[in-house]
């Protein structure tokens, strides 16, 4: 067989567009997932029984279903939900790219919830008691005492989860969104150059993820709190 990598260099601008979407999806899902995940974690740890049960049920459901199936679910549900919210006559065209954004935020929230829950639970109880003794309310205690420390303790885990998320975004391929892998697959099939394209994609992902996890490891050593 003869390999011809010119297909890669010729399609670089198109691949870069796909990569931009991949990065956008990763960052948005990570930030959105972290926000909703923290809220979910607070709900799970709440003394209000129905609230914590509801949050636990959501997290457990999301974590026991494959991401591919979750993507299919939302691809089918999002237009229907938007239709019932806006009262439109036909389901609105949302597009694979925007559906993927919503899906990943809600899916990652379940995983970030578990990380933040572990982070919150790792804070000594004395901190919370001390905050209450100073007269802070729940909101102030969480915002100013507990969450900043939980976030700092969990930063390496959160970043590692974001690297996994970066890899998982490739699954938007199943709804034909044009992310990095989607773009590569389209070029590969058009030009019948699957070998070159997929080898290139694998190499790019490997270099990015490998160097990012190396940086996370270094960060972990640097910010480790001396106890």
């Amino acid at each position, binding site marked *: *067989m003869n390999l011809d990598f010119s297909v890669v260099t010729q399609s670089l601008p198109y691949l870069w567009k796909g990569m931009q979407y991949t990065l956008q999806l990763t960052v948005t899902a990570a930030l959105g997932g972290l926000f909703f995940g923290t809220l979910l974690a607070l709900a799970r740890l709440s003394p209000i029984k129905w609230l914590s049960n509801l949050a636990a049920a959501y997290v457990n459901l999301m974590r026991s279903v494959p991401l591919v199936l979750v993507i*299919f679910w939302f691809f089918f549900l999002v237009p*229907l939900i938007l*239709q019932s919210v806006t009262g439109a006559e036909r389901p609105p065209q949302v597009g694979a790219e925007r559906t993927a954004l919503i899906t990943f935020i809600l899916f990652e929230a379940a995983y970030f919830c578990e990380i933040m829950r572990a982070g919150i639970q790792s804070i000594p109880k004395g901190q919370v008691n001390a905050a209450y003794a100073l007269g802070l309310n729940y909101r102030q205690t969480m915002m100013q005492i507990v969450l900043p420390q939980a976030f700092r303790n969990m930063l390496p885990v959160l970043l590692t989860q974001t690297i996994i998320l970066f890899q*998982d975004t490739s699954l938007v391929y*199943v709804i034909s969104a044009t992310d990095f892998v989607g773009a590569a697959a389209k070029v590969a099939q058009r030009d019948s150059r699957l070998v070159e394209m997929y080898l290139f994609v694998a190499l790019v992902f490997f270099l990015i993820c490998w160097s990012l996890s190396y940086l996370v490891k270094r960060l972990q050593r640097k910010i480790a709190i001396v106890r």
Partner: protein
Amino acid sequence: MNYNWNWGVFFQETPEGGTQYWQLLWDGLLWTLGVSAVSWLIAMVLGAIIGTIRTTDHAWLVRLGNGWVELFRNIPLLVQMFLWYFVVPEFIPPLKRWMIATDPIYAQFLAAVLCLGLFTSARIAEQVRAGIQSLPRGQRNAGLAIGLTQPQVYRYVLLPMAFRIIIPPLTSETMNLIKNSSIALTIGLAELTFRSREIGEYTFNFFEAFTAATLIYVVIAMTANRVMAFVERRVGVPGYIGGR
């Protein structure tokens, strides 16, 4: 929402005739379990070996193990699936010839099993290494002191302990493996998720089809959880948290 509910869809005949839609789901479930079981075996065997060699004092073995883990951990599973199905056969002509000649389902099964097995082996290797390294140094030294060789120390002292300690993370890796097997649908393997979407496309009853698949996945996850909790209770190391 204007949606035509039809929970009876599973007992309708498929366009091919002779079969009902629930049989498609059942068929898909069997493929999901089959792919998961075979990949699990590959992953456990390779993971145990790779994890073990990463704790030896041979520098090149450690490097080989680390390289293995980094390689499979830093490429998305979807891309690995494409590599095994589309790229690897191009470099092995006899394999390519077999893949063209045989029923595609066997080629898809082989690629999926290799992909998931090796991917998961890297994750299990990481757990095995952590398990071995969590044991007190005295265990290895005591083993060597009573005259066991290095392989015997691993076989009779370290690995039996390590595997009992890492059962909880192995449980979640097993569940991840079952969920990850759905990615095999991208190379056309008709497993559970593939079948539920197929039913949705044939009948437009996406909601019912996805609900059925979701319930099946939840049941699998809960069953795996119960089984492993039982194993954990049976083999827990006395004296450790979670042991008897």
